[in-house]
């Protein structure tokens, strides 16, 4: 009884958790296919691929992606190299200094990106000037500054990833290599580096993603090379369009694809290892190629499904023309809008009539009728009608009776305040 309740609540929790986690992504992805000019899921108008089309026609976005890729590559190279050096140093350094060194190396992660961005800019500008170089030198180049600026803290992330692997490294392996005649460089290249390869790959992916999504630091350093995040931020400033959703969808799809691919690869290695363990050398020669890519590999199946789905969607996109649907929706919208205007007019007319009736009632008390209500346009162009009903009567009651001196109220102290 209580067991089943527990199970139900765990499932409920999981559902809520994943909704919270993935809901926004799903909604954003869906809006990329809605023809509505504002990214939204409902009301659903038409299935369209026009936003992808628009995205790929947007020179600024494409340029931003290009810059992001260049800067990402530079950051990966620099951060992984610095991270590896830092991690190696951590294992070599005098044990008493280790804690201090670690803190210093980790510090950039704790410093706000904005501060890193500004300080990068200021620091390299100073260096640039000290060297007597102009504003077009390498040191003030946006790509260079952004790579340097991002690497200051991304290198720390890389170091954390690399240290974790390095801690499992047996120094005796390097010693064994030296003992067998290798130089230090050979031992590093042939023993340590291959051992670190998985961690280096993770660090590189991490560095690239961190660089790709970085905004705070880049916003100070990009110069003439705005990255994708910078371009997006500038675009959003002038209003958001579904082409940004389309971009988000592409990024999500790519992420899922590579995650699945990685999973499939790992699973495959596992299967191969299992086969190797159970086989003798003679068997291995023939058998190793046999394990089918799919055997017991759910991730691989998913990858293939994913690929098929992508091809289908792209194929549909090229063939599909939502013009008719869009036209229908536009027509419908136009009709709706017209109808709404009609309704509004009717409403206004009724209001006008009502007011006239009221004024007619008050006619005995106030001799002069209010001007300007009798224009031929049914009150639509009357400035007061824009403000709505409630405000219409307020000025009358709030304005204090003006004094009747000869200066037209210019010296009335109240009129100053009213401005």
């Amino acid at each position, binding site marked *: 009884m209580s067991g089943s309740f527990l199970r139900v609540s765990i499932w409920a929790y999981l559902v809520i958790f994943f909704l919270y986690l993935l809901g926004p992504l799903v909604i954003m992805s869906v809006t990329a296919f809605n023809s509505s000019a504002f990214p939204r899921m409902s009301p659903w108008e038409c299935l369209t691929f026009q936003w992808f089309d628009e995205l790929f026609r947007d020179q600024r976005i494409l340029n931003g992606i290009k810059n992001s890729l260049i800067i990402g590559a530079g950051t990966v190279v620099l951060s992984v190299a610095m991270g590896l050096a830092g991690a190696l140093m951590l294992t070599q350094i005098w044990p008493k200094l280790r804690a201090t060194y670690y803190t210093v190396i980790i510090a950039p992660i704790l410093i706000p990106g904005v501060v890193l961005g500004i300080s990068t800019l200021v620091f390299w500008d100073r260096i640039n000037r000290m060297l007597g170089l102009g504003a077009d030198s390498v040191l003030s180049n946006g790509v260079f500054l952004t790579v340097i600026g991002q690497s200051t803290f991304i290198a720390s992330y890389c170091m954390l990833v690399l240290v974790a692997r390095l801690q499992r490294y047996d120094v005796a392996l390097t*010693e064994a290599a*030296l*003992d*067998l005649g290798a130089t230090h460089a050979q031992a590093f290249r*042939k023993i340590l580096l291959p051992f670190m390869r998985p961690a280096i790959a993770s660090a590189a992916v991490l560095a690239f993603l961190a660089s790709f999504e970085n905004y705070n630091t880049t916003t100070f350093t990009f110069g003439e090379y705005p990255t994708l995040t910078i371009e997006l931020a500038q675009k959003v400033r002038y209003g958001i369009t579904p082409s940004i959703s389309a971009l988000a969808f592409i990024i999500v799809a790519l992420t899922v694809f590579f995650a699945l691919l990685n999973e499939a690869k790992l699973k495959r290695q596992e299967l191969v290892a299992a086969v190797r363990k159970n086989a003798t050398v003679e068997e291995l020669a023939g058998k190793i190629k046999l394990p089918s890519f799919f055997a017991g590999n759910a991730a691989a199946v998913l990858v293939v499904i994913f690929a098929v789905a992508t091809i289908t969607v792209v194929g549909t996109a090229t063939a599909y023309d939502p013009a008719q649907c869009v036209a229908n929706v536009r027509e419908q919208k136009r009709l709706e809008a017209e109808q709404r205007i009609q309704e509004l007019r009717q409403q206004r007319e009724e209001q006008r009539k009502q007011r006239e009736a009221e004024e007619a009632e008050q006619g005995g008390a106030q001799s002069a009728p209010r001007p300007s209500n009798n224009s031929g346009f049914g009150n639509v162009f009357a400035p007061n009608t824009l403000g709505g009903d409630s405000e219409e009567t307020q000025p009358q009651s709030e304005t204090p009776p003006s004094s009747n001196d000869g200066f037209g109220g210019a010296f009335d102290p109240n009129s100053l305040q009213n401005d």
Partner: protein
Amino acid sequence: MSAGVGVDLENLWIRFGDFVAVRDANVNINGGDFFSFLGPSGCGKTTILRAVSGFLDPSEGRVLIGGKDMLGIGPNKRPTALIFQNLALFPLMKVWENITFSMEIKGASAAQRRKRADELLDMIALPGQGDKLPSELSGGQRQRVAIARALCAEPDVLLLDEPLSALDLKLRQHMRTELREIQQRVGITFIYITHDQGEALTMSDNIAVMRDGVIDQIATGKTIYNDPNTAFAASFVGENNVFRGKIKQVMGTEAMIATNRSGDLVARISTANQGKMKEGDDAMLFIRPEALAIAPDGATGDHYVTARVKHEEFEGNVFNIFTQGDGGKEIKVSIPNHGQSFQDHTGQSITLEYETQNAVLVPAGELAAE
């Protein structure tokens, strides 16, 4: 490699800060010898090995290999190969790549390496296993791969740092014989580090017994077992019963000590201490369990000890009798099993006898931890 390359340690000191790991070691290792450093963990034997292989510089003194001073010569330039305690096989390389790593460094082609690897795999009785990863091998197989990898570098001196300690007993005993065979086949100098006296005794030509950075004795296994220099060597190598006392009388190569509880006992003074021990000195007398025998009741004299039997056990080849000696310390007696009927003595008081030749007298000193 016919004569082999010898290794000499001259007045070797190694310090880590204030800690002295090796204290004035002087060792001559002949070319082609199987030489063991035997001692408890932390005695400095691994430090010596690292100094020979070049991972450590001596604080004082010299390490000579083939008569050449090795100071300033890195581990990759020395004619030594080290087999690490944990073997340190390269986990990402296949067995054959592991074995021929030293050739890869020198730029040998893959075909050459393959060929050499196959030869060595045959030698270590692992033919056809070259394409496996080290993790796919058993402990004993990995052990042999490590040896093949070291031998592939064609060292003049092979250094082994407790390579058998991770193996189970059966395999360890098997590998002892195998190591000894390999050493005799390749004819190079082996320097072997161990805390297991069984390994040292069975394999070595010569053994250095170490304690706290000091070498107590360098001799053949037989000599160390029968004629130890120090109380430590006597108690560390093999089982031994100790009797403490003061020297009462020195009679040439023999001496009589007065013990508190067991009366006066006579023993041979160990060779290295002859002429150095005099009356009144504190001394320790060691008798091996197998050198003791049960004497007829009532026998007394300077080579008889009375004791009360605490318990007995049957070990197959021997009966072990554990007695509460008069000195308070347990005395172990091992009586070979010749198929005779064996009388249970538990709770009884018995008299034990020994031959003076089989009891050794050394100056009182630190005993090995049990």
